[in-house]
């Protein structure tokens, strides 16, 4: 038998006897014959471990790592060696959801630490144990606004929110019967006048904005929370987690819910996943929050211990009345973030942001000095990402192709003449100079 399957012929024979059966087939006597698969799967035959390795090597050969100036919600940050050493420990990796706290304190404790760290980052009171990714976390926040408001089903989303996130929200809204409307943008930021206008009817349950926004701009949301609260709407802010060490936080803006992707906290790009959606909110809204929550309590001996708590919100108890259908989330990725933030601390995270933000401003300057592109919104403050408009005759595709030839991912094409460019601590000054010289040669 295969190495994953411990059964010998003798085991099978004796176990069948114990079950009063003669053949394995007898155990399927209740499956109608016409439903039985009467052939082998049309799949490759068993591969040895070496052959599996060779197959994956062939996939790898058809891929190329690039010096990455692409962002748009996915950021190429460094993942310290400690992270993979800890997250690959099979006591963490191969555990189930911690429903048995007596033998799951490892998982429960790091989720408690994760929740504490995420509230420190966002400036809000409470965090759940994770969501799938930043986009679905935002969609869940949208549904939470409607559930908290009762009888209101209109939610506003700024045009400056990442369009991928907005697309996911739109899909959820369509089926969850939410009227999701876009607040237009003006000069790269949310149009305040139109936001105020749209709030007037008083039927808005929630408002979703981003910081930094899709174009990397750090918007001014002064007054947003007050207007939302005066109309009994919740303010949701979507923020890439790492940036919260640098930009004004959802807590400081007075937001009710903070959501986003925490991939920027030590997770590899992994071609899109697994990442880590996060959600934080105020203590008042904790019972409306989707997902698992870990709380502290005492065991019979008076020791401080951790358990899954407030489970009455969840699908396995409340079924169709649950706050969400989420069950499995991204548990292990919360461990990535927790170990990352333990290593980085306040100073490390500050320095990562400084490297990214300073680098982005340096690169923007170098690229502008080529005369081949310029900042689309030059009067708006940006953090580690910026939108460039290309000069006449230069297309985004041309820049991307020229850079690709030299191992550089130039950025995300937003329009034929628009490129969204991001920096992290992973790109050196030399990389940026090389990028600028390629553009200069176009």
């Amino acid at each position: 038998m295969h190495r994953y399957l411990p059964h010998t012929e003798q085991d099978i024979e004796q176990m069948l006897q114990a079950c009063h059966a003669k053949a394995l087939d007898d155990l399927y006597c209740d499956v109608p014959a016409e439903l039985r698969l009467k052939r082998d799967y049309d799949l490759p035959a068993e591969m040895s471990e070496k052959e599996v390795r060779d197959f994956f090597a062939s996939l790898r050969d058809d891929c190329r790592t690039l010096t990455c100036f692409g962002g748009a919600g996915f950021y190429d940050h460094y993942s310290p060696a400690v992270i993979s050493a800890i997250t690959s420990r099979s006591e963490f990796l191969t555990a189930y959801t911690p429903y048995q706290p007596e033998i799951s304190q490892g998982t429960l404790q790091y989720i408690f630490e994760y929740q504490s760290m995420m509230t420190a980052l966002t400036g809000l009171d409470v965090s759940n144990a994770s969501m799938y990714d930043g986009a679905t976390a935002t969609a869940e926040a949208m549904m939470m606004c409607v559930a908290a408001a009762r009888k209101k089903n209109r939610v506003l989303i700024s045009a400056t929110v990442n369009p991928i996130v907005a697309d996911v929200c739109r899909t959820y809204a369509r089926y969850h019967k939410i009227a999701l409307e876009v607040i237009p943008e003006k000069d790269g930021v949310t149009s305040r006048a139109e936001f105020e206008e749209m709030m007037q009817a008083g039927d808005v349950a929630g408002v979703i904005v981003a910081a930094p926004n899709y174009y990397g701009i750090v918007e001014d949301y002064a007054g947003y929370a007050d207007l939302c609260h005066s109309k009994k709407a919740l303010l949701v802010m979507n923020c890439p987690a790492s940036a919260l060490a640098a930009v004004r936080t959802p807590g400081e803006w007075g937001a009710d819910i903070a959501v986003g992707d925490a991939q920027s906290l030590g997770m590899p790009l992994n071609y899109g996943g697994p990442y880590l959606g996060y959600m934080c909110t105020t203590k008042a809204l904790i019972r409306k929050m989707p997902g698992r929550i870990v709380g502290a309590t005492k065991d019979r001996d008076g020791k401080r211990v951790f358990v899954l708590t407030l489970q009455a919100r969840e699908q396995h108890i409340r079924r169709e009345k649950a706050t969400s259908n989420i069950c499995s989330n991204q548990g292990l990725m919360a461990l990535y973030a927790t170990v990352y933030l333990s290593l980085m601390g306040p100073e490390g995270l500050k320095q990562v942001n400084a490297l990214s933000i300073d680098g982005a401003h340096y690169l923007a300057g170098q690229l502008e000095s080529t005369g081949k592109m310029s900042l689309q919104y030059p009067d708006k403050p940006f953090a580690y990402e910026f939108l460039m408009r290309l000069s006449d005759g230069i297309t985004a595709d041309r820049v991307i192709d020229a850079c690709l030839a030299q191992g550089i991912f130039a950025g995300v094409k937003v329009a034929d003449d628009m490129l969204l460019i991001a920096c992290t601590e992973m790109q050196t000054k030399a990389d940026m100079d090389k990028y600028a010289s390629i553009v200069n040669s176009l």
Partner: protein
Amino acid sequence: MNRDLYGKLIFELSHQGRRGFSLPRNEFPAYEIPAGLRRETPLGLPQVDEPTVVRHYTNSSNNNFGVDTGFYPLGSCTMKYNPKINDEMAADPVMSRLHPLQPQSTTQGALKAYYTLQQMLSEIGGMAEFTLNPFAGAHGELTGLMTIHAYHDSREDWARTKVIVPDSAHGTNPASAAVCGYEIVEVKSMADGTVDVADLKSKLGPDIAAMMMTNPNTVGMFEKNIPEIAKAVHDCGALMYYDGANLNPMLGVARPGDMGFDVMHINLHKTFSTPHGGGGPGSGPVGVRAGLEQFLPNPRVVKNADGTYSAICDDSALGRISSWIGNFAVDLRALSYILSLGAENLKMVGPLSTLNANYIMHALRDLYLLPIEGPCKHEFVFDGLADKSTGVTTLNVAKRLLDFGFHAPTIYFPLLFHESLMIEPTETESRETLDAFIAAMRQIAKEAAETPDLVKDAPHNTPISHPDDTEAALHPVVTWAELN
């Protein structure tokens, strides 16, 4: 371990000025975000050196129980062995560094991996096409229901506002249907745990969008009336949805597509051996029969005529349900698993998982109450101890099992019985492990009769004793800041 030194939270190990990070030198001119737009609040993260971080989490992991630690007979969770080669393949040094939006000419291998797994799952499920975009089982259910909704919408069949769910269903089924905007209609189970077809037929009509089922169901019984059920559901214009949480025993035996299901999801973190990670990341691919492919979500990965692969978005599709193409590195593990087993071994997974479950069932049915007769599939349910006079509950039995070094079974689910104890051994457990588990369960039954308090006060040998859940829920303390 030294609990005083190592039983603390990472915040309690923090000292001003310690650092655990390593970053390149900043060679750039400094830029400051304008006042009013930058963070002003001090960032309350711990300050810890690298050795302390490593020791902290290593000790913490010692308080955890995983599949690599011991037997995990958790019903409906399929806690099978997680092969190590899969983890290594998922951590590929090149594919793990790909940006989702980098030019697709540089990601062909990754797209091929996605496409290949998609094709393999289609063959295993008897479906026409799969999307790997959903992140977990519940996300797959939601995506599948959205796909069904999109299908009915395309026919301008607006009256279908309800989804039928058996009373034995996983909690995610009704919850997913509710998130998708559907009303839930519950259909009863018969005494043998299978769907009451007469009750079902009385509920079918032009208002039904879909019927959600697991097969085998959550009591581990094969729904043998499935051809009749599928016909009745299709006759009323609704679609059949297969919850793949219990797909494991069907490997090599029967395919959901051949049973009459139109849409299904698979939990790769169950049937295809990817690790649960203490609650994710999972992966919940969704498959559809021919004719429904166009309703799957964006992006879709396709093979082009010239042999290259593309991830494409088109307007007719469902729209996005994820940022990109799902938990890619989890999918790589499942691909590695299928290749490692191959067609000839994959077909043994179902029968051997079923053999293991029946073996345990037969060895314990004299001491534990078996409410449903007949060969089970990969799992079965006891309704607690046979002897109800001891006062020992299913919760007590579960906690006592921890003392024997086993994870507890799923308890108090399904809701059909008061003392449900749901056992799923999976095919990767040896006969010796099953025998040791059986011996422990028999010992516990003996203790329940002779020294019931020993069982009621369990566990006794775990890192912590029984926690006060009531206090935790009454006065939630959910952050380090609140502890102080």
